[in-house]
């Protein structure tokens, strides 16, 4: 029987079946499970790298050594890995190299919704786009064929609805691939100007060959339904279009979105009176069609913001509107929140209490920006909290440096925060950095990282000593505090803000959702003692609410962290 698989699980299956030997990635929603799944196959060496640049460079080295190699990341991760990607395009590969990049249209769990196809175009690397789980598997395998045939890294772009949707997948046995012998070849692999000039010529020749391949590649499919309307589409958009429009139109479904074929576009549209381009985010297919002189409509109908779906397509193209039922009252929204017992809460409560300006970063703790903590001033990208704070304090000096902190998780710190902290020490800004060390990569669903002492497979690994590391780069003042002890955390923050030198506070307490973390018994409220002051509600803990005018703790959520107990002036919250 076929197996229901997430797109990501199917992707990993394809890598496995194609004989992939090496995988290195940094977690990022919605790409994370590809690497978690491939780690389950003993034949594949798999690891978490500290960031995407390291992952792609490691995979490239594995390719040079002759293995079929792989790296995965989310769309913004490819920005970090863009540096090796653009030059790996010049060197090409030895063993096949496939790089997965998962876009997040609609920003379910991301800070922007950039379209990764721009990176494929700019780096001149072929890009494939599967539209369901079976295609994730097949395209991963085809990626290696293309990589080795055309001597190029291959990008495979998914999106949330492909990566995180399950559909049936046929599983086949693994094809073992011998290592390709490594041969020293500086004019191919040493990218100094004299050699790189030669390689750029090779890249342009390769692109011509890839365009010729795209003209007849079986993954660029025409479905001729005898219609006068033509739809050009790719990825999840194909599935939405097919559901909305069925067999009323002809389709050109592009499995390869870089480079794009010219003649195939012209031949397909020659038979159509009307041409629609249905693609999420930017109008890449549309620009290509228009450059070929094809009259078509795309972004003027669908826009470039958020996800598409079958209802939007049916409404815009067929004028169909679903009959809707509406609930008779307005309902309160339910935004995501820090979990009950989250160790970050004590830090943000303290920062909010003292009205500290907070330079934020990427992780669960970005939720510190939400009500009622409201304790974050900006968040940009991985590692930026520390460097943004440095620039802010250099400009405002005494006006800001004793009232501002950066907050960054342990995994994000190892990703790109470390080099920012080196800059704080080296260029001596009077900045205070709080490393929120919850001993795991949290938001993406608990991945190990270089500070946790375990590797991707769960085996013991070297653990970065954060205190020693901060000292080694020139930060003299480094201290560890427990965020479950509000008084201790408050003292640490106020003292480090007061001094006139760079300092680091490591807020150390493992994520409350980790399996090995033992929870205390839930707390409860003595309603006779509760004066309804609502002090405990300032924590923004989802387990605490008001019931019949008194504070109330939900025993199914409370993990007994005790922060609310510390805060209550009337001893109403008890074990």
């Amino acid at each position, binding site marked *: 029987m076929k197996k229901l698989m997430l797109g990501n699980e199917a992707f990993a299956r394809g890598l496995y079946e194609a004989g992939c030997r090496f995988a290195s990635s940094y977690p990022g929603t919605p790409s994370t499970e590809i690497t978690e799944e491939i780690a389950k196959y003993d034949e594949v060496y798999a690891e978490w790298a500290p960031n995407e640049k390291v992952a792609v460079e490691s995979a490239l080295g594995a390719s040079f050594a002759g293995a079929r190699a792989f790296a995965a990341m989310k769309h913004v991760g490819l920005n970090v890995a863009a540096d090796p990607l653009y030059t790996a395009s010049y060197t090409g590969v030895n063993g096949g190299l496939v790089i997965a990049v998962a876009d997040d249209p609609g920003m379910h769990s991301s800070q922007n919704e950039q379209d990764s196809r721009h990176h494929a175009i700019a780096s001149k690397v072929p890009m494939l786009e599967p539209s369901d789980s079976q295609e994730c598997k097949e395209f991963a395998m085809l990626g290696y064929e293309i990589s080795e045939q055309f001597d190029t890294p291959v990008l495979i772009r998914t999106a949330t609805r492909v990566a995180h949707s399950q559909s049936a997948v046929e599983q086949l046995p693994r094809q073992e691939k011998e290592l390709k012998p490594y041969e020293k070849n500086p004019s191919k692999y040493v990218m100094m100007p004299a050699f790189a000039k030669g390689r750029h010529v090779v890249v342009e020749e390769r692109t011509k060959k890839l365009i010729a391949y795209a003209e007849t590649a079986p993954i660029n499919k025409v479905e001729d339904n005898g219609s006068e309307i033509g739809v050009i589409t790719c990825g999840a958009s194909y599935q939405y279009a097919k559901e909305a429009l069925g067999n009323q139109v002809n389709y050109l479904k592009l499995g390869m979105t870089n480079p794009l074929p010219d003649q195939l576009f012209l031949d397909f549209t020659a038979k159509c009176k009307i041409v629609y381009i249905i693609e999420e985010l930017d109008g890449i297919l549309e620009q290509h069609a228009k450059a070929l002189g094809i009259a078509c409509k795309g972004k003027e109908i669908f826009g470039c913001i958020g996800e598409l779906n079958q209802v939007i397509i049916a409404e815009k193209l067929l004028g169909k509107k679903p009959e809707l039922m509406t609930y008779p009252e307005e309902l*309160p929204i339910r935004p995501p929140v820090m979990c009950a017992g989250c160790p970050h809460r004590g830090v943000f409560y303290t920062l909010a209490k003292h009205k500290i300006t907070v330079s934020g970063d990427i992780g669960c703790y970005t939720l510190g920006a*939400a009500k009622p903590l409201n304790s974050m001033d900006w968040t940009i990208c991985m590692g930026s909290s520390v460097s943004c704070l440095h620039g802010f304090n250099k400009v405002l000096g005494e006006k800001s440096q004793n009232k501002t902190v950066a907050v960054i998780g342990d995994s994000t710190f190892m990703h790109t925060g470390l080099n920012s902290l080196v800059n704080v020490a080296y260029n001596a800004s009077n900045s205070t950095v709080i490393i929120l060390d919850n001993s795991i990569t949290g938001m993406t669903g608990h991945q190990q990282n270089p500070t946790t002492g375990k590797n991707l497979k769960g085996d013991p690994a070297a653990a970065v000593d954060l205190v020693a590391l901060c000292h080694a780069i020139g930060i003299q003042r480094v201290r560890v505090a427990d965020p479950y002890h509000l008084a201790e955390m408050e003292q640490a923050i106020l003292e480090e803000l007061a001094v006139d030198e760079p300092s680091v506070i490591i807020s150390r307490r493992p994520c409350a959702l980790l399996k090995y973390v033992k929870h205390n018994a839930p707390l409860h409220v003595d309603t006779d003692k509760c004066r309804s002051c609502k002090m405990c509600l300032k924590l923004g803990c989802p387990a605490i609410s008001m019931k019949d005018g008194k504070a109330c703790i939900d025993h199914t959520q409370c993990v007994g962290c005790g922060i609310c107990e510390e805060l209550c002036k009337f001893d109403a919250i008890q074990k």
Partner: protein
Amino acid sequence: METKSIMIVGVGGQGSLLASRILGNVLLQQGFEVKVSEVHGMSQRGGSVVTYVKYGDAVYSPVVEKGEADVIISFELLEAARWASCLKKGGKIVTSTQTLDPMPVITGAASYPQGIVENLEKMGIDVTAVDALSLAEQAGSAKASNVVLMGVVSKKMDFDESVWQEALNQCVPPKFIEMNRTAFALGRNA
């Protein structure tokens, strides 16, 4: 067969991913083409979450939009109300009576809506409301609410109970299987 659409809704952390896996497994065993769509990441942290399960002869889009759902399975009352507009006319809701205050209610900016089941029924929706949390605790763990609800849903779908049991075997780790079987039975007989 026309494609059928089910939505599983709740609050991040309530276990909707396991529920969708069980349901998907049952439908695959019945020979349908199945697509299940989940969202991971930030919304899992206590936010409103939704999983789509679609099945039929051919399924294209993995997502369910407003006015398209045949059934909504809800782990929490307010979420049942929130997603009700996704139902087709004549659609059904199976919901747990559990309530979890969202942050605007906790901070006092809003109050938790009252009379949700009655309002849903006034909209013409066939509502089955079950105290899944108590039944799950009776089975041994509050976390088994998801499997209790699967038990309730199993009575409303025309598949043999053995198919559901097989799906439980495939989706639940062996050390929790007995507790989950009990939870399923309590839901099925509720």
